[in-house]
């Protein structure tokens, strides 16, 4: 038994090592003095300094944040209303309807991107923040919809009936009772959606305008001209941000129970 568990420990360690080694390398080299990612020549924050002074990079970051927050808010409203609506219908086609509403998660991103681009072109929409926002909303809605739907499924339908019984119209019953109770799911779904929006490259490339750049696109285009340790610094910052979002997310989902 003991020998067996030692092997299991070794195996697990190896997998984690392989998974996280590249990330560790990036973090370590973001603090490297030298420009070449071969040898660690000394601790330095100069790449972070350079990053802060890189106006184009900062602009891309701001764009990504605006896009992330906006698409997250729009999808939160659409996704929540959708989940509540789905929970109230009892049609025979309900199953199909639920499947259709989370389909964007399963359609390959490259197809979704191409389709959206063609569609916006047909509509004569100017490519830019608006098209990005619509594109991101399309794939953000399902995350929120799924989270809220699961939360609603676990909610006693008598709660809303009780509110109506005590004198609340349909709107008040939703606002005073249902919404506060599904809020944790709305927030956790939104965080997930925000994280997805922040790092999306594929769809963004298709629906992006010529003058605008989001952070992932910027990083991607920089790769073509050669990696600078500045990218390492950026990745480290983004990793830290993702980690924080993940911790907040797990705290919220833990509190649900």
């Amino acid at each position, binding site marked *: 038994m003991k020998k067996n568990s030692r092997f299991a420990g070794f195996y697990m360690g190896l997998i984690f090592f392989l998974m996280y080694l590249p990330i560790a390398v990036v973090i370590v080299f973001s603090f490297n003095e030298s420009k070449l990612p071969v040898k660690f020549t000394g601790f330095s924050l100069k790449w972070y300094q350079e990053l802060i002074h890189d106006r184009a990079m900062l602009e891309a970051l701001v764009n990504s944040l605006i896009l992330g927050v906006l698409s997250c808010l729009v999808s939160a409203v659409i996704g929540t209303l959708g989940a509540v609506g789905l929970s109230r219908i009892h049609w025979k086609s309900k199953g199909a309807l639920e499947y259709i509403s989370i389909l964007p998660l399963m359609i390959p991103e490259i197809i979704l991107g191409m389709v959206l681009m063609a569609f916006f072109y047909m509509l004569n929409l100017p490519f830019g923040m608006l098209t990005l926002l619509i594109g991101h909303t399309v794939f953000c809605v399902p995350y929120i919809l799924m989270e809220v739907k699961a939360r609603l499924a676990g909610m006693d339908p008598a709660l809303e009936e009780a509110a*109506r019984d005590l004198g609340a119209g349909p709107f008040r019953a939703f606002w005073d009772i249902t919404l506060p109770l599904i809020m944790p799911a709305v927030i956790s779904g939104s965080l997930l959606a925000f994280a997805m929006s922040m790092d999306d490259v594929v769809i963004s490339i298709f629906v992006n305008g010529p003058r605008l750049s989001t952070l992932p696109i910027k990083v991607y285009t920089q790769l073509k001209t050669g990696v600078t340790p500045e990218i390492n610094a950026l990745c480290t910052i983004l990793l830290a941000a993702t980690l924080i979002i993940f911790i907040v997310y797990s705290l919220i989902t833990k509190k649900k129970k």
Partner: protein
Amino acid sequence: MMNKLIELKNLTKNFDDQQVLRGINLDIYEKEFLTLLGPSGCGKTTTLRIIAGFEEPSDGEVLFNGIEISKLPPYKREVNTVFQKYALFPHLNVAENIGFGLNLKKVDKTVIAQKVERMLKMVGLEGFGKRDVTLLSGGQQQRVAIARALINEPKVLLLDEPLGALDAKIRKQMQVELKKIQQEVGITFIYVTHDQEEALSMSDTVVVMNNGEIQQIGSPTDIYNEPENRFVAGFIGESNIIEGTMIRDYLVAFDGFEFECVDKGFEDNEEIEVVLRPEDLDIVDPGQAKIRGIVRNITFKGVHYEILIETELRTYMVHTTDYAEVGREVGLKFGPEDIHVMCKMGSY
């Protein structure tokens, strides 16, 4: 009695292809404690939900003070509900839960606080206002649910198996308390349960339901002593049900003998069924009774023995404090008033 408050007229309800209510006619009076009693799936909860406004009847009328309300949404009705699993709002504390209805009506905050205090006192939860409802015991949650409904001063309180989730001891205690509260506030209670003992001990009127139909309406004593059919007799208490013939008024025949009885109003020679309650039967020497049999089984039940006596035609159940050893031949004695004659039912 008092004034009619609610009238159900020919209510039917279909869910998909299934008919769960098949023509319910019922008058409910002011200040009455009325219980809808029946096995699960008999339509009692559906009837309650139609009165509350959560379901619309497929056909028929619901009159409240003479006005048809079956299309009125729940929040416009002068009734409040205590739900089976209480349905307390988990994100609000005890006082906020109780004050919810008044808050919606935009009642002044200090008035709400006073009324909440009064309600907490009535249900015996003084000082619980700031507590988290999810941390209360079942019995306490139940009291909060009752207070939350009663604070709105409804004309009718609907209770959907409110004691179902409580353990036996607290349930007994809550039965007494509910009855006390009902007398205190002086409003109509409509109570749904499948527990016959609960129904008999609390109600002014019991409505026995089965299969979407009302089987009998009456006081607890009427329902117990004069069941109208085999279903009611079998559902309420234990009973010996015997097929027989009503020879004429006050004379009934079953098991090959004629017996004097107190029932009348049947047709001469009508096929009927007779109920003999186990506690109304006495065990005597074989020579002193018409019906005789052999003791097959005796079980000690605490207050009494349950004795099974096998006769030529059937097995009778007797509840008595007398002991009779297995295998002994005995006679079964009962008086005219112990025989309850009922109409024969085809389908049971």
